[in-house]
């Protein structure tokens, strides 16, 4: 439930790939995602919340390490080595029983069989062992990120973003892009070499779709065309052109090439014309969004552009 507040946000997660691969390699779970576990805490995890679970003191490292051994031997076959669950057992990281537990007191009865009717069979483990396992599980749950994001790296390593057909993508490029962009070096608004400019498929795709070297995060309204070329035509026919500073129903502000700021109270006889250089890209994403194969066209163009090294 994303809310509109100053505290909600979008965060780009760029997990170091080498680290992610290393963590992934040690996770035998079905997904092979490799949640960070105690003793292998990831260098960059999601921003943590400040709930009780995130702030309570952890058990001593040797207790946690022993708890992990006991967990792996007794629990991991159903709940997975990363505690995220499997067909045979639920996700323990998100368990209210674990979050509300302090020192194993809520886990002991469950291990003893109190939830047998829900499919959790009784286990023969001593109280001390259960409490030690609980200490380990708390050390993992402490790494839960803000807004319930899972512990550890937020991205599965080795995701294949470029899946399109580069040949079909060239045809799609010719249809949708070539009136403005050339693929030849030195051509009109050339995209030659774009495949070498971006190190991963997601950055490449975001760049060409948005028409920007970077890309903007989602949001409302946004910049309102700030910086775009604007021409204001007065009631008497005089015009003034420059870069847009701000524009709303009541006031328009622009900067002329000499650097001077001009501010106008808008009225009925004044026209304001803003040229949006992103217009063609906006039209394209809108068109693709409404077509059944729009995503495929986007993926194909990305695959084609990736070949332009």
């Amino acid at each position, binding site marked *: 439930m994303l809310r509109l507040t100053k505290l909600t946000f979008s965060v780009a997660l760029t997990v170091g790939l080498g680290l992610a691969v290393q963590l992934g390699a040690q996770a035998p779970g*079905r997904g092979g995602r490799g949640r960070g576990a105690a003793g292998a805490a990831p260098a960059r995890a999601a921003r943590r919340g400040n709930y009780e679970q995130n702030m309570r003191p952890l058990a001593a490292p040797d207790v946690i390490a022993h708890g992990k051994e006991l967990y792996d031997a007794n629990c991991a076959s159903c709940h997975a080595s990363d505690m995220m669950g499997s067909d045979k057992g639920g996700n323990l990281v998100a368990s209210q029983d674990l979050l509300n537990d302090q020192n194993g007191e809520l886990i002991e009865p469950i291990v003893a069989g109190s939830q047998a009717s829900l499919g959790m069979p009784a286990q023969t483990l001593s109280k001390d062992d259960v409490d030690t396992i609980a200490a380990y599980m708390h050390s993992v749950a402490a790494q839960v990120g803000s807004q319930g994001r899972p512990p550890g790296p937020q991205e599965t390593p080795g995701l294949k973003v470029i899946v399109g057909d580069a040949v079909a993508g060239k045809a799609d490029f010719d249809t949708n892009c070539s009136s403005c962009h050339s693929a030849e070096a030195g051509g009109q608004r050339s995209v030659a070499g774009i495949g070498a400019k971006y190190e991963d498929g997601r950055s490449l795709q975001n760049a060409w779709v948005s028409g920007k070297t970077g890309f903007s995060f989602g949001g409302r309204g946004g910049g309102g065309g700030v910086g775009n070329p604007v021409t204001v035509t007065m009631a008497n026919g005089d015009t003034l052109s420059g870069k847009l500073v701000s524009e709303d129903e009541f006031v328009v502000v622009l900067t002329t090439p000499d650097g001077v700021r001009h501010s106008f109270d808008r009225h009925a006889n004044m026209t304001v014309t803003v040229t949006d250089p992103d217009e063609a890209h906006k039209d394209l994403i809108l068109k693709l969004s409404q077509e059944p194969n729009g995503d495929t066209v986007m993926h194909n163009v990305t695959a084609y552009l990736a070949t332009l090294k």
Partner: protein
Amino acid sequence: MKRLSTVLSAALFVLLPASFALAQSAPAAAPPATAGAGAQGGLEPTSLLKPLGDNGWPTYCGDYTCKRYSSLDLVNQSNVGNLSLAWVSAGLESGSGPTGTGAPAGGRRGGFGFGGGGGTPTIVGGFGTGELNSGGPARFAGSVLEVNGTLYLSAPDNAWAVDAHDGTVLWHFYWKTRGGTHTGNRGMAMWHNNLYFEVADDNLICLDAATGKEKWSVPSASFAGQYFSDSAPLVFGDHLIVGAGNDENAPGFLQSVDPATGKRQWILYSTPMKQGDPGLNTWPSLYAAQHGAGSTWVAGAYDPETHLYVYGTGNPTPAYTTGRGPGTMDNLFTDSLIAVNVDTGKMAWYYQTSPHDMHDWDSTETPIFVDGNFNGQPRKMVLQALRNGYFFVLDRTTGKHLVTSKFGKVVNFAKGVNANGNPIPNMEKAATIPGSIVNGDVTNYPPPAYSPISKLFYVEENNSLRILYLTDADPRGSMGLGGTSGGASFSFGSNIDAIDYNTGKVVWRHPVERNAGLLTTAGNLLFGGDGDYLIALNPETGKTLWHSKIGAEGNAPETYMLDGKQYVLAVAGNQLFAFVLNQPSSVGAPAVASNR
């Protein structure tokens, strides 16, 4: 639509007991042992039955219908151009530190034991140390109550009483938080002389309205379980309705407590909690349902004839990867409009507005009750416009579906709607590894409005498209709001929309930069926001009649009558602005004779 007679609440103390017990043992101020309301007075619960007008603004929506339509007409189309500032409050500051006076970044305020403006005493509560309170300018994103000439408003961990005549701060209450997710606080409730508000670390606090002193606090949810509480409580007779939020795969719920003591009367979970609960067959497993969310963080509307409270539930969790694996399932009763009998806590009907949500559509937006003709027949209806870009009309007594329409211009996440009007999610528009182009949020908590004069429903409409990537490819799904990354995005503009409930069609669109909620009045005016402007529009045409640049608003404008003047109130940033039709001083109060 389906009718349900079974309750979900039996699982009550199965999942949440320890935290509640722990939280109960911590606090200083315990609820009184006896329930008797004792000396009454203040705001009588029966006065909340009145339609919004000359009785102040006594609830989150102003009245139970949530139309946000006031019968006040002193300010109207003929004179709104003369609306001008009566007063502006000093910038209100949230507390921090052990006494509430910890200097926020920039050191804006000194003084020991004082805060919130003008040397007003700060009353301190809470179980934290104050170190986790961020302090600084108050973030207003909820409704303001106006009762007998006093305004009551809240921000995360803080509440204030303000003189409605001139903006003077009367008291400031500050809660030392234990932590948690601090989203916007949506406002307060009043019952006799008690004020109620929720705080992020999951306490429901009862204050003495006259002094701001804490009467009691009770846990509203499990803080250890990573719930957070920010919704506006609501009073229906002797029931105080309390909602909660949680992003970490926990069950959402709504509860009713005794307004005198805070003792729980009933709890209704949003998802199936045990074998045999209705809706369980819409989840891949009981475990998934028990961790399926459906938060209750936005106030709904109440029908005193049927005793039905109608509210929206939030998204399932994990928000972007729910139910990957066993195919699409509806995930009841997330993203649903639910009617609950406030006396029994039993669900009377539900209607799902976003089945199998894979986009955090979080269908909690405020519903509005309208009595009117539908297809020539009188109907008691409920109208709701949602974050997923769809608008719905139902019969509010039975839950029968009447209208579904798409008001978001670029909405593409659904293939269409089924015979019952429910959107059919297009699973190709969920987050994918190579990216899918999908619409963003069309609306959110900002309150919609309705005018019985124009017979139109008003709501903000935000149009955007973005590339949504799946970054967590685990077939078990991610957790919470994890597992995705947003890519390239474009805005296609925001509007205030007027919607005809008979057809669901948008009658007009008024472009705005953004908007935080709407108000209609018998003066045939529609108040709202356009970026940093407070604006008044003609509700029939959408034409602008008046504007004032006060900063981005945090919630819908409100109106109240005081000493013969109609005030229009708006919150922007950490300030309160009150507008009136100013008159020459000689027409106002008699001149004060001076002896000096």
